[in-house]
């Protein structure tokens, strides 16, 4: 069923991510986040869902310091997010961007996966080891000599995840990881993510994935948190979902063929 470790909102362990009263307004005057708070415990998998423009991506960008809070605080592990702690925060939080093309830019897959570890200043043999390890985790070891721009969408996504895994982050943050994937690639990705030990935070429109992968769901609406709780409850609450411009995951809706409504 949902969740891997049985951690829920009631997890008692020390939070690895703590967001307090976070506010952010884009330079063009768009108030994207209007004060929201949540914390995530070690090993939790959390889905952040909400309508287009609700502020999901903006939240994620704060988690590894791509954006700095204008008001409120973000804590990652023991580090309060600031210019000074940025290198530590980025080592802890691995960010997989929505569009893999933004992330992959080296001429060869293995160079791309090596980019992070090399920037960490690791010795060459350790870098090689990490590259092969990360690629084999996502099942892309055979792609290592290919140029990234010649890969399929699913392969690109796998490599983009490997390029973050190679830095051994303890928290994985992903923006819409299942977008543009065919059903099988999507299923494979979900199964892969289920095997990860890391704390995972995903922003997604794929509520079935949220239901499948994440024990906990946070619904965001217009820059505020609408609800935060166990996925199994939230994703069945029709009233709540409509308020968040969402609908129940397909698998929780009645089958229109075997039991037509009415």
């Amino acid at each position, binding site marked *: 069923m949902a969740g891997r470790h049985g951690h829920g909102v009631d997890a008692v362990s020390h939070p690895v991510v703590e967001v307090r009263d976070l506010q952010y307004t884009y330079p063009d005057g768009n108030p994207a986040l209007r004060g929201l708070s949540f914390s995530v415990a070690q090993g939790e998998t959390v889905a952040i869902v909400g309508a287009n423009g609700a502020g999901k991506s903006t939240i994620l960008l704060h988690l590894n310091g791509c954006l700095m809070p204008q008001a409120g605080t973000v804590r990652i592990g023991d580090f309060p997010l600031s210019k000074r702690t940025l*290198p530590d925060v980025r*080592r802890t939080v691995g*960010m997989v*961007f929505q569009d893999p093309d933004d*992330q992959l830019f080296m*001429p060869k897959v293995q160079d791309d996966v*090596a980019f992070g570890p090399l*920037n960490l200043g690791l010795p060459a043999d350790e870098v090689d080891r990490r590259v092969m390890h990360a690629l084999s985790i996502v099942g892309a070891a055979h792609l290592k000599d290919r*140029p990234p721009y010649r890969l399929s969408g699913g392969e690109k996504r796998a490599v983009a995840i490997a390029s973050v895994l190679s830095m051994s982050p303890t928290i994985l943050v992903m923006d819409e990881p299942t977008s543009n994937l065919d059903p099988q690639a999507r299923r494979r990705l979900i199964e892969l993510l289920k095997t990860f030990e890391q704390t995972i935070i995903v922003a997604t429109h794929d509520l079935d994935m949220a239901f499948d992968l994440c024990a906990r769901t946070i619904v965001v609406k217009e820059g505020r948190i609408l609800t935060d709780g166990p996925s199994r409850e939230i994703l069945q609450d029709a009233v709540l979902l409509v308020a968040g411009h969402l609908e129940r995951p397909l698998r929780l809706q009645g089958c229109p063929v075997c039991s037509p409504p009415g």
Partner: protein
Amino acid sequence: MEKTGSSLLDLTYLDTLSDQDTPVHRLDPRVKLLTTLLFIVCVVSFNKYELSALLPFVIYPIVLVALGNLPLGYLLKKVLLAAPFAFLVGIFNPLLDRAVLVHLGPLEISGGWVSFASIMLRFVLTVSAALILVASTGFNAVCLALEKMGAPAAFTVQLLFLYRYIFVLGDEALRMLRARSLRSFGGRGMALQVSSLMIGQLLLRTLDRAQRIHLAMRCRGFDGEIRIARQLRIGGRDLVFLVGCSAIFLFMRLHDVPRWLGDTAMALMR
């Protein structure tokens, strides 16, 4: 990305070529860079009417293409793509400089035409040398070599980004052109006004994209310094290549080899 590659510039293919294992590819990037620079300096520094002394320099690209297993046709196409620029630079010479310089039997050739031919030849030589450098080394390694040889990091990083963003720009341009042609019926919407709006959009979009790429790089610890896994080491083979090529270039620069060969042949025949 690949669509842009094949139809617009196909520069990505150049990088793919650099992933081979030939004697040329195995040379140290710094050695190749230095040799290429020396080659270009030698070729460019001839006086503007020089033609015969330039010819022997053709050997360098030919040998490298052969040893480096590079596709000649592809490289020639890339050279041709850039040729119009050189053509524009040189084409006024025949009009401005009409003094007769060479008599070939009844044919009189003006200095303008000679210098035009010289410009075109130099252009082909230098551009092909630069293309061969990238095709046999990879652009990242060229930038790394520049940095290792003392070029400021700011400069090499800019170069690296420029190279990366060319693809981004090409990609965006292609998508916008496709979107426009799909929706402009019977030529309407293809007006100049629309084009200028599109160029503005294109720049904004590219900037946006470039920013996201930069962000993604920073997230993985990029701090303005390029690091690649390959260790650079100059060995005996590299030194032989560097010294050998330099000697040959300098010799060809200082002596008009074809004329010298011709004179010797004449002397022997007499």
